[in-house]
């Protein structure tokens, strides 16, 4: 390729300018709309057809080497089952038809995630596709993100997790003690064009995954046809996990 000095300088200049603008745009985060924002819709009623089912939890824990720590106080959770009372703390579903149904909880992959805002090392950050990702090798274990997350979606390894992994998945890293972890919407599968493990494993197809920025996606069609809620929307975090009522 023939490139004159002048042309080279011009291209370098524009590239640098472009990179700088992207950085600036990224700094403003959610004020610029993304092309892709992965999201999840949870169909509470479909899920409740099998009250004892833990398929999504099992497959997630297995795929990501999530330890099953027996001490509840040191539990590590990526996706878990809870009551509507806990899931929608501050809302009143006492007399609603979902009052007694289980609700699957996970990281909300917020539009403006407080955990990312407070992390002193950028060990957790928001990817361009909207996923709130984590670098377990950079995390210093200060747990500031856990104080900041209003959904308790983050877990800390209070002890060495490895003894509590029954059969380790060699394809995925295990963690060390002293770092925080959480659901990553299966970034490792998304990069291969696959859906998250929990979505694939659900026998009732109660989890719908997709790009919420794409008006023609399945998740958007579902959201436009069904009533839904998000968790604590008043905090301005912009959760991307939607609960179909």
């Amino acid at each position, binding site marked *: 390729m023939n490139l004159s000095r002048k042309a080279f300088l011009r291209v370098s200049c524009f590239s640098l300018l472009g990179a700088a603008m992207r950085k600036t745009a990224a700094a403003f985060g959610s004020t610029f709309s993304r092309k892709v924002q992965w999201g999840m819709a949870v169909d509470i009623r479909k899920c409740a057809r099998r009250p004892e089912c833990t398929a999504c939890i099992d497959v997630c824990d297995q795929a990501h080497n999530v330890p099953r720590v027996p001490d509840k106080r040191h539990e590590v959770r990526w996706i878990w089952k809870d009551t509507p009372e806990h899931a929608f703390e501050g809302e009143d579903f006492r007399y609603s038809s979902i009052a007694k149904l289980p609700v699957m909880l996970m990281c909300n992959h917020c539009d403006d995630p407080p955990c990312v805002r407070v992390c002193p090392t950028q060990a957790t950050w928001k990817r361009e596709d909207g996923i709130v990702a984590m670098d377990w090798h950079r995390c210093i274990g200060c*747990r500031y993100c856990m104080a900041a997350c209003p959904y308790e979606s983050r877990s800390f390894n209070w002890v060495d997790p490895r003894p509590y992994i029954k059969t380790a998945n060699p394809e995925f890293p295990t963690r060390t003690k002293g770092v925080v972890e959480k659901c990553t919407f299966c970034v490792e599968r998304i990069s291969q064009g696959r859906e998250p493990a929990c979505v694939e494993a659900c026998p009732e197809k109660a989890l719908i995954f997709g790009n919420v920025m794409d008006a023609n996606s399945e998740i958007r069609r579902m959201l436009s046809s069904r009533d839904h809620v998000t968790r604590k929307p008043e905090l301005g975090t912009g959760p991307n996990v939607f609960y179909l009522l």
Partner: protein
Amino acid sequence: MFLVEKALTGSKSYWRWMLILAAVIATGFVFYLRQLDYGLGITGLNRDVTWGLYIAQFTFFVGVAASAVMVVLPYYLHNFKVFAKITILGEFLAIAAVTMCMLFIFADMGQPARVLNVLLYPTLHSMMFWDMVSLAGYLLLNAVIAWATLTAERNGTAPARWVKPVILLSIPWAVSIHTVTAFLYAGLPGRPLWLTAVLAPRFLASAFASGPALLILLCLLIARVTKTQAPRESIQKIAVIVTYAMVANVFLILMEFFTALYSGVPEHREPFQYMFTGLEGHARLTPWMWTSVILAAISLVLLIVPRYRTNPRLLPIACGIVFVSLWIDKGIGLIVAGFVPSPLGVVPDYVPTLPEVLIVAGIWGVGMFILTVFYKIVIAIRPEPFAGHAGA
């Protein structure tokens, strides 16, 4: 060179005291090694209460560190001569307290070996980054100031001209360290107890009460150890500062009570219920918090009534009470109750474990050790620590 040699000679009781401190530090260190090996699961912390004694103690001692400004400011900005002999004690107290703060943060980290990641990936939108910057800066400022003024005093000369601007810088810096520390908490969604604009003012008020109260006790202690006159006039002036700060602090806490309890908004009311009456049968903090309230009330009586405040027997008691009351309030209650109830509405329990308490004791030991060395140097240079100004 750094005057450390002055701390290497001392009486039997001096060495006995240092030996006790060394033993406390060593015990804490041994348990810290165990924590390093086992993980933070060795503490009472858990998935709901993720910060406890370490971070709470850190918060309290940032206040003690910031309080040096309460003697530095009157002396350097208002030429308040009675504090001439006290400022150096305040600055050394600040150094010891900031060192303790850094150790508390370090003890709380899951991966302490990665601490430098904070500098390697400076993150301007993280308040923890700014807290690190402000604390490190404050430590440096006070170390430089204390060393420069003390060497000048030993040499019988005036401090170099560049010292004054550094001292002036340390005044707003002291305010900043506690403001930024309040910002660690006051900007988090989903933690309603902390989500209040009054938190930083409250931190400053409690700091300016607890720190100077400790300074009065330290002055009295130094006077007793050196068998010299206590600086009565300076102590009385500091007592007035403690009084105003404590009144402001109690006032701000009452403001919090009013908003939380009168509005009745559950997320604002519940942490206070947990602290003072117990929530859903969980009431571990209740005896502590009531102790803090009662002590605060007693201290206000002792401080506000001039007859009591000027009574040399009652004043140390009042200062001790202020210190303990605020230590409970900020060094335990505020941080732990911030996690109760959890964002999911669960009421968790947190009880510090023995290793955790011993590690905290070890860090206290380090603080006292540093303070003793520094004050020993001051006494060595100045056999009558408070003579010259404002004698009895």
